[in-house]
C-alpha cells in the first residue's frame, strides 16, 4: 500500500426521497488498501459502495475515484466504471450467456478487445478462480459458489484497479463460502485495492488493512482490524461486535 488516495469521499450526503441515508460521510482509500465495511442492516453500507461506481447518485459532497470526480456527466461515470469492478450479493451473471461469454462480453464491447484475445484473457481468469472446466456451461448449471467465482472473474476481465464487493458470500451456503473467500484472499495478496462489505470477520482479520464500522449512514469507527475488534472505542461498535460474535 502506498500513500496515493484512489477513492475519496468527502461529506457525502444521500437521500432516498425524503429518507436521509448517508450523513456527511467521508472516507479515503489508498492504492492497494483492503477496506472491510461492516455494520448493522440498513446502515447504508451498500449505498456507500454503490455510490463509488455511481449505481446510486449522491446529492451532496464529492466522490473522487482515481482522480476523476463523479458528476452527472456520463463521461466521468464511464471512466470510473472502466476502472472499478463490482461483485454483487446475488452474483448477477447473465443467464442467457455461457460462462465464457459472460466474461468476454465487456472486454469485447467496452474495451474493443479482439474476440480471441478476450477469450484467452477470460480463460486465464477462469483458471485463477478454478472454474475453467465450466467455461461452456450456463450460469444456471453452476452452484452458488461457482457462480460467484465466475462473477469475480468477470469483473477482473476488465482489469480494474479497484474492486468493490457487496456481501459476496451472504447468499451462499456455508460450505461454499470458503471457496469464494479463498479467491478474494488471493486477490488481496496480489495487491488489489478492495472495498468489501462483509460480515466475515475471519476474512477481515486476515486480509483487511482497515475496518470501517457504519451505523445510521455514518462512519462510527475506523481502525485496523486488530484494534477495532480487540479494542473498540465506541459503544455502538461494542454492541454490534458482541451481536455478530454471538451468532
Amino acid at each position, binding site marked *: 500500500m502506498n500513500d496515493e488516495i484512489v477513492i475519496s469521499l468527502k461529506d457525502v450526503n444521500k437521500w432516498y426521497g425524503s429518507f436521509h441515508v448517508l450523513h456527511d460521510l467521508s472516507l479515503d482509500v489508498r492504492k492497494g488498501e483492503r477496506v472491510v465495511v461492516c455494520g448493522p442492516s440498513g446502515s447504508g453500507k451498500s449505498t456507500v459502495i454503490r455510490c463509488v461506481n455511481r449505481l446510486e447518485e449522491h446529492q451532496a459532497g464529492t466522490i473522487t475515484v482515481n482522480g476523476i470526480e463523479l458528476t452527472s456527466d456520463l463521461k466521468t461515470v464511464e471512466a470510473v466504471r472502466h476502472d472499478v469492478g463490482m461483485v454483487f450479493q446475488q452474483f448477477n451473471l*447473465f443467464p442467457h450467456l455461457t460462462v465464457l461469454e459472460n466474461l468476454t462480453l465487456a472486454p469485447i464491447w467496452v474495451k474493443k478487445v479482439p474476440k480471441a484475445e478476450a477469450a484467452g484473457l477470460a480463460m486465464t481468469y477462469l483458471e485463477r478462480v478454478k472454474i475453467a472446466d465450466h467455461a461452456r456451461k450456463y450460469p444456471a448449471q453452476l452452484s452458488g459458489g461457482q457462480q460467484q467465482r465466475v462473477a469475480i472473474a468477470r469483473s477482473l476481465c476488465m482489469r480494474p484497479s479497484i474492486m468493490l464487493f457487496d456481501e459476496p458470500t451472504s447468499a451462499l451456503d456455508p460450505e461454499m463460502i470458503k471457496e469464494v473467500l479463498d479467491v478474494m484472499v488471493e486477490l488481496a495478496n496480489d495487491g488489489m485495492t478492495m472495498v468489501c462489505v462483509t460480515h466475515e470477520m475471519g476474512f477481515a482479520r486476515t486480509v483487511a488493512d482497515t475496518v470501517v464500522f457504519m451505523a445510521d449512514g455514518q462512519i462510527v469507527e475506523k481502525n485496523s482490524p486488530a484494534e477495532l475488534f480487540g479494542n473498540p472505542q465506541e459503544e455502538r461498535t461494542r454492541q454490534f461486535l458482541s451481536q455478530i460474535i454471538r451468532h
Partner: protein
Amino acid sequence: MTTEPTVGLLTVPWRWSRRHLFQSPGSSVLTLLAAWLLWKVLPSAVNWALVKAVWSGDPAACRASGGACWAFVTEKYRLILFGIYPYDEQWRPLTAIVVFVVMMLASAHPSCWRRWLIWMWAGGLVLVGILMWGGVPGLPYVSNDRWGGLPLTLILSATGIVLSFPLALLLALGRRSRLPAVRAASVAYIELWRGVPLVSVLFMASIMFPLFLPEGITVDKLLRAQAGIILFTAAYLAENVRGGLQAIARGQFEAADALGLSYWQKTRLIILPQALRLVIPPLVGQFITTFKDTSLVVIIGLYDLLSSTKMALSDPQWRAFYIEGYVVAALIYTVFTAAMSYYSQYLERRLDRDRRRS
C-alpha cells in the same frame, strides 16, 4: 427364470391413452364427448369432402354429385391465389410467395440471427417490390391495384411484422425511459393506437389521410394501408415487449452498468435477449393476429386472399360453392398460422435450454 409381464399388442396404446386421454374423470368425459362428436360428424364430412367429391368438371357435374365441388378450386385457383394480377405474369407473384417463404425459413433458426438477416429482409422486400411492380426491362409494369390474393396478404403481414417490430422495441424502451418527454411520447403513441380499431385505422388511411395532403400529392393506397398496419401493430407489440422488460431483475441492469456497458449495449446484449424470449408466445400471438387482420384491407378495396376468394365466387356459375372456396382459403390461412404457433413452441423450448439446470 422370472417371466416379464407380457407386453401385449395393445399395451402401448392402452398406456398412452391412460396418460393422455383418461388421466382424470374430467378429461375422460371430454375424451368421450369428443369421440362421440367425431363419430357423428366425421363420416359425413369424409363422405362430402372425399368420397362424393368432384375434382374437375363443370358446375352441373358438381350439383349432380352432392359432394364437395373441388372442381371450383381447380377452375379458379389462379384467381384465388393471385387475384386479378395479369394472367401471363402470375409467375411473378408466385416467385414473390417463394421469396417470402424462403426468408421466413431462413429467419427461423436462432443461429441465423445475425446482422445479415436485416440485409436479407431489406433485399428480399425490394426484390418482391420489383417482381410485383415490374417496370424494369423484361418485367412489364403492373399497377398495385391489380395485386391480390396470397402475395398481397403476405406482403401486408410480413412487411407489417418486420417493420413494426423495431418500432415496437423503441416504443417499449421509450415507455421505460428515464427521460420524461420520451416516456410521455411513447405512452401517448401506444395508448392512442391501441384505442382505435384496425378497421378505422385503415379507413382513415384510405379516406381521411388524402384529404390532409396538399393538392396534387398522392400517396399510394397500398402504401397507406401498409403504413397503417405497421403503426397499429407496433403499439400492440410494444406492450408485449414491455411485459418482458419488466420481468428482468434489477441486478441484470446493475451488473451491465457496473461493467461499463453503454445504455444501448446493455439493452441490446443483456436486456432485450432475455426480455424477448420471455414474451415469445404473446409476440407470436400478435404476429398471427396481424396475419389474419390483413383481410380487413378489403374495406378499402384491396384484394387479399379472402377477398380474391370472394371474387372467384362472384362468378354466377360457381356461386353455389362458397363452402369449398372458404374451406380452401381457411386451409391456406391455417397452414401459415399453425406454422407460426408451432414455431413459437419450438423456439421457447430451444431458448429455455439455458434456464434449465442439466
